[in-house]
């Protein structure tokens, strides 16, 4: 029981973390149709900016300033970069973001060095929030969950309940009409891109000290955020939320499962089991596979339901 509850809690918190990482990506894709490959780079920059700012004036100002700076940078990138290549179609946009990602990956070690920087959790949040049986739940983890849920709620409300959200949604499907009604459509897209990168930056501010702030951190999360976006359904925030939670919980629980294919057939005389070449395959345990499960789910999803859990686009 203790193990089950702890694992459930761990799974939930990991899932919410995944959502935090991928929400900006999903937002930009759902509202602009741009698959932002530089998303993880903005996450990394968020962590480094937060490190720099927090070593000067503290963590709390950094929590606000770093995402704002990155949002501004993202907006400028959209205005002077993405908008120019937009004319050449989606492939050009994609290549542009890949280029930005490569650039950031090379520039970061030039400025901050290849070694991890000392970006630590703030003292105010470095305590145990509560204890479940004998397992303690750190306050910083609680803080991460709170931010992640906050992100979800805020995005949902803004997009579906506010005026600006309606304009954004309308601009996606009927840009000419929205323009004719007197709204500046390009500026709407600039805003969306800026908010998307700001969200990535916020995830970086929070993830950077929970994990390690180093030049390879972008590459480390780069693949998993795409898994979330694909499984959730490209362009669906609700889908991304559900996918994050489901994958987080599945992965956490599968670590605990020490079963392999050979256990399944144990006792029965299946000839295959005695095949030397296959034995190593059969003895792979589920726990060993755990970190690969999200990728497996993505492949299956692409085969059987290409639009993802709740995707609206093909």
């Amino acid at each position, binding site marked *: 029981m*203790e*193990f089950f509850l*702890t*694992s459930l809690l*761990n*799974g939930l*918190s*990991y899932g919410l*973390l995944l959502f935090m990482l991928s929400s900006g990506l999903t937002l930009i894709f759902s509202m602009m149709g741009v698959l932002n490959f530089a998303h993880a780079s903005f996450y990394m920059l968020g962590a480094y900016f937060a490190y720099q700012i927090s070593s000067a004036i503290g963590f709390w100002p950094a929590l606000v300033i770093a995402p704002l700076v990155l949002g501004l940078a993202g907006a400028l990138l959209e205005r002077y970069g993405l908008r120019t290549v937009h004319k050449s179609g989606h492939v050009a946009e994609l290549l542009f973001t890949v280029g930005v990602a490569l650039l950031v990956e090379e520039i970061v*070690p030039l400025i901050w060095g*290849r*070694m*991890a920087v*000392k970006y*630590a959790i703030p003292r105010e949040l470095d305590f*145990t929030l509560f*204890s479940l049986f*004998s*397992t*303690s739940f*750190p306050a910083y*983890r609680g803080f991460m969950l709170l931010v992640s849920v906050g992100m979800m709620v805020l995005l949902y409300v803004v997009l579906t309940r506010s005026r600006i959200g309606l304009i954004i949604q309308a601009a996606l499907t009927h840009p000419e009409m929205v323009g004719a009604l007197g709204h500046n459509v390009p500026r709407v897209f600039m805003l969306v891109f800026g908010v998307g990168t700001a969200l990535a930056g916020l995830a970086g501010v929070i993830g950077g000290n929970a*994990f*390690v702030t*180093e*030049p*390879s951190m972008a*590459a*480390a*999360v780069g693949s*998993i955020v795409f898994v979330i976006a694909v499984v959730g359904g490209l362009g669906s925030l609700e889908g991304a939320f559900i996918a994050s939670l489901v994958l987080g919980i599945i*992965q*956490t*629980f599968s*670590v*605990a499962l*020490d079963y392999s294919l050979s256990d399944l057939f144990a006792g029965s005389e299946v000839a295959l089991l005695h095949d030397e070449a296959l034995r190593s395959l059969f003895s792979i345990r589920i*726990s*060993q596979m*755990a*970190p*690969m499960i999200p990728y497996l789910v993505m492949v299956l999803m692409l085969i059987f339901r290409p639009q993802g859990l709740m995707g609206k686009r093909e």
Partner: protein
Amino acid sequence: MSEKIARAGILVIFAVFLMAWPAVAADTIKIAHIDPMSGAFADAGERADKMLRAVVNEINAKGGVLGGKKLEVVTLDNKQSPQESLLMLKKATDEGIHFITQGHGSNNAAALSEAITKIYQRTPEKAVLYLNFSAVDPELTNDKCNFWHFRFDSNSDMKVAAIVSYLARQKSVKKVYLIGQDYAHGRAVRDAARRLLAQKLPNVKIVGDDLHPTGKVKDFSPYVAKIKASGADTVITGNWGNNDLGLLVKAGKEGGLKVNWFTFYAEAGGTPAAIGEAGVDHVYQVSEYHTNIPNSSIEPFVRKFEKETGMSFYYLRMKTAIEMLAKAINQAKSADPLKVAKALEGMRYQSATGEVWMRPEDHQLMAPLYISVMTKAGPKLKYKHDVNRSGFGFRTEALIALKDSVLPTTCRMARP
């Protein structure tokens, strides 16, 4: 147009001449350093390169080898891949280099070791002597051993043996958990731990073992929950790096896991900073050296290195390797790799932490190993030297005698 081409041609010839000039003039003995200098592992490769250059500079400052010849480091980037390693080896032999050194990744080491055997068989005049300073797969000095490969780091079996002999003295150790990265190294550590614990400490139970993909796990809390549920009091892991070791220990602290961690690489690079407070008095390390070994003869060199580069010195084993190479060249009175290899076999040498011996049967260096534990360190504290300005260092818990870490070898070496 043709005039332009001619002018460019002259420039190119001139440039090539200029590049070739110092090499001819200096007449140095070159050592090719083949390690990752770009990509995710570049940090480790660059650090090792700086240390290697410092070691070589020290030898050169004392007059070099063979009465005045200087050593020279040629850095080659293998991008942490066996294929690239072989390309770089080819580049080294094309430049007439007879000595290579490498340390990161047993997969690269295995590829290099195999390739140099073939080089000698096909073109003996191009023979390459390989100083391995940190690839610890036991196979390299057992079934896959070869005459041209010399290992200066204790292999992972020996390190596990040292850990087990230390655990044998701790009465409180009852349940051990094994966790590792899912590749040759992690598996080798696990297998050695299973074998040696069963042999030497039959009363200690192995309560679980896990392999996870290298560098892919962001959240170790499920593993921590599992270790906790197993009731383990001790964890043995070959994990390295800020992520796989740093995050693992941190997650352990967050989850309220109270165990002692026995590691190989807790001191490397930024790992002490990544582990942080969570490791103090709980993260142990088995190594030939750590920053707070008292009265070691390496002190002046280490302080100078720290001052010049701003980083802590880590690879005593690499320093030993290059110094033994220099000694072997002097003893052989030649830089001929075959003669140098013969001089290295069986060599005894006084390293900064005691006498070491290159076992001739398998070319595995026998060196004393320390068990140390993470501690707060800094200029004003009891333990003066922290690692890479992290505020954390290591203190000696035990010095493991050679008899407790030496293991027999299955190597049957073909000698030229």
